[in-house]
């Protein structure tokens, strides 16, 4: 079924082609081919999935390029081996020039290496590990929307500074969870807090978190940091309420929370949660217009920051290809992206740093009380804006080989 879905998605996606091929001869094989690689059916499908494919297509349509662009999509099932084999197939056989989205850090890290090996472009939107612009950085990868360092810095710092000193981590046992836990622990320690304990939960496949929550409860930590995402976060928060964790005086810190998670939990359960995100639909007129169109195509669901990030990343990629008049050399395209400032209707002005990190402001949000919400999907209020130059890990601290040279 998943394989079938993948096939179907791929077939459906190839149907899209935009604009007149004026300068097609300069593009490799006459077409710029963008592959959206993410979880189309599992626990991350709502926060990225088909919505990201829609966002990529929308970006192409809005950019209205003078060259031919095609968008294809596939399901990596959150498995690095599956993701890697699709990436190789895409680069080698299907002539895909750029892969975008890549939730699930373990898959993102695998594709990151393949992109470098084949000299193509990799643009990570929903993948989180900050290692992509740290020790694993390559001249072919751009990390767009957020990363574990930025999440830890936003949420972790805010909580420690308002008195949440003692932490316990519930961590998804793979690259993403480890990176998020590591980066948050560093922030907690740097701000005078302390980590009392941690537990690693198998990924994917854990649905009952009560055992881990009890361990967190027994640790007597003030803050239980959830270094997980999507369905894992939803189940953790829900079951924490069931076991009276919050009533007992401990607080939860969702370190990576998406709008769709809040929607699934409902405001009654999620109210008061603090989290860091890169983007929220109800910010400007153009983000609201984008959300309205997105919702119309997705049964009323509103876009997450990951999906908006895909739109923004694809837009910047097309701008770089347009400026170069070529998509053939991946590293050159990425270099061009670093040279040009980014600017689009969703993320506004930004810049891609030497290590491949796209920088822009991040926001500390608080989930509204049911009484404060004016209707469906009206969920966040802004607690603080973290300016672009403070939101991400300083260039010198990342150990990215590209920066040392």
């Amino acid at each position, binding site marked *: 079924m998943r394989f079938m879905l993948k096939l179907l998605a791929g077939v459906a996606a190839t149907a899209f082609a935009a604009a007149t091929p004026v300068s097609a001869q300069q593009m490799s094989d006459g077409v710029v081919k963008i592959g959206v690689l993410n979880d189309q059916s599992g626990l991350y499908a709502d926060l990225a999935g088909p919505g990201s494919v829609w966002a990529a297509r929308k970006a192409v349509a809005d950019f209205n390029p003078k060259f031919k662009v095609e968008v294809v999509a596939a399901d990596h099932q959150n498995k690095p081996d599956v993701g890697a084999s699709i990436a190789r197939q895409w680069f080698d056989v299907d002539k895909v020039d750029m892969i975008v989205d890549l939730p699930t850090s373990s898959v993102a890290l695998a594709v990151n290496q393949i992109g470098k090996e084949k000299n193509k472009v990799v643009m990570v939107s929903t993948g989180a590990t900050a290692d992509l612009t740290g020790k694993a950085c390559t001249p072919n990868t751009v990390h767009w929307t957020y990363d574990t360092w930025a999440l830890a810095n936003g949420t972790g710092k805010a909580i420690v500074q308002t008195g949440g000193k003692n932490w316990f981590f519930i961590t998804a046992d793979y690259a993403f969870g480890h990176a998020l836990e590591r980066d948050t622990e560093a922030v907690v320690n740097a701000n005078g807090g302390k980590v009392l304990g941690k537990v690693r939960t198998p990924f994917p496949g854990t649905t009952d978190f009560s055992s881990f929550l*009890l361990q967190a409860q027994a640790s007597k930590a003030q803050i239980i940091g959830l270094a997980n995402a999507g369905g894992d976060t939803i189940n953790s928060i829900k079951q924490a309420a069931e076991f009276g964790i919050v009533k007992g005086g401990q607080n939860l810190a969702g370190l990576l929370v998406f709008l769709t998670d809040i929607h699934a939990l409902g405001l009654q359960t999620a109210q008061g949660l603090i989290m860091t995100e890169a983007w929220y639909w109800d910010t400007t007129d153009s983000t609201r217009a984008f959300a309205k169109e997105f919702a119309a195509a997705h049964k009323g669901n509103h876009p997450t920051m990951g999906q908006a990030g895909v739109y923004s990343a694809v837009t910047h990629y097309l701008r770089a290809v347009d400026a170069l008049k070529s998509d053939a050399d991946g590293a050159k395209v990425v270099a061009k992206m670093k040279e040009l400032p980014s600017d689009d209707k969703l993320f506004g002005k930004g810049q891609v740093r030497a290590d491949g990190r796209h920088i822009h402001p991040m926001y500390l949000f608080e989930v509204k009380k049911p009484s404060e919400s004016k209707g469906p999907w009206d969920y966040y209020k802004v607690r603080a804006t973290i300016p672009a130059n403070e939101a991400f890990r300083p260039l010198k601290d990342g150990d990215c080989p590209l920066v040392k040279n």
Partner: protein
Amino acid sequence: MFTILGISSQALFGQLLIGLINGAFYAMLSLGLALIFGLLNIINFTHGAQYMMGAFAAWLMLSYAGVGYWWALLLAPIVVGITGIVIERLFLRQLYKLDHLYGLLLTFGMALMLEGVFRQLYGVSGLPYQIPQELTGAYNLWFMFLPKYRAWVVAISLLVCIAVWLLIEKTKLGSYLRAATENPSLARAFGINVPLMITLTYGFGVALAAFAGVLAAPIYQVSPIMGSNLIIIVFAVVVIGGMGSILGSIITGFALGLVEGLTKVFYPEASSTVIFIIMAIVLLIKPAGLFGRRA
């Protein structure tokens, strides 16, 4: 208070109880599977999807008809059980004379299709289902804080498991069922309507899965993938207990819940693997499973 390997007795008892709660789900699901395999010789891979449908039936009844939890607990298994009977009449019936593999493929395919349909309609993040008013809150045991709802789950599943076992081992209907399992043609010669028994057994097994689904709805999100998360483990439970053994599947279900619970304390990283390690060991030593009759 005492400690074992650095874990306080208090924490340990809490974890054992949690293990028992998860075990209750394993037991109820594997019980249905064992029943179906015993009589139909079908390895029902649709079981996880039917568990999911039970949860969705409860959610749909509440959202669209205002039917609350208690009625859903009764009605959802009936509704989903009837869909099971339809499936048996239309499809499974054609496969009894063929190899096991065909039944497995058919039910597996149907599970994927059902999940696909619900995923298409409702997404994967899941839908919230509140704990019924009467069961909110918790008991403060000396060693842990036990939500009333979880206590209810353990109690009702134990009750259901014991009732089913008694039904099969101690009643006349149960003896017919066992006779039909043992030797269908002889049972038929004695005037037992074997095809009807088969249909009803499948419906009942499916209803058990749906019942577990309703019980699970307030604990987990009501989500299309909730069944596929569980089904593989439940199959391991059935294999360890012995294919087709009713008592075996109940005891193994609860026991493996406990083992998994303990693993979550001492080495959480292995908690998703431990059941399969046990399965491999059991298969090496007793290929028919712990309670299996035939080798």
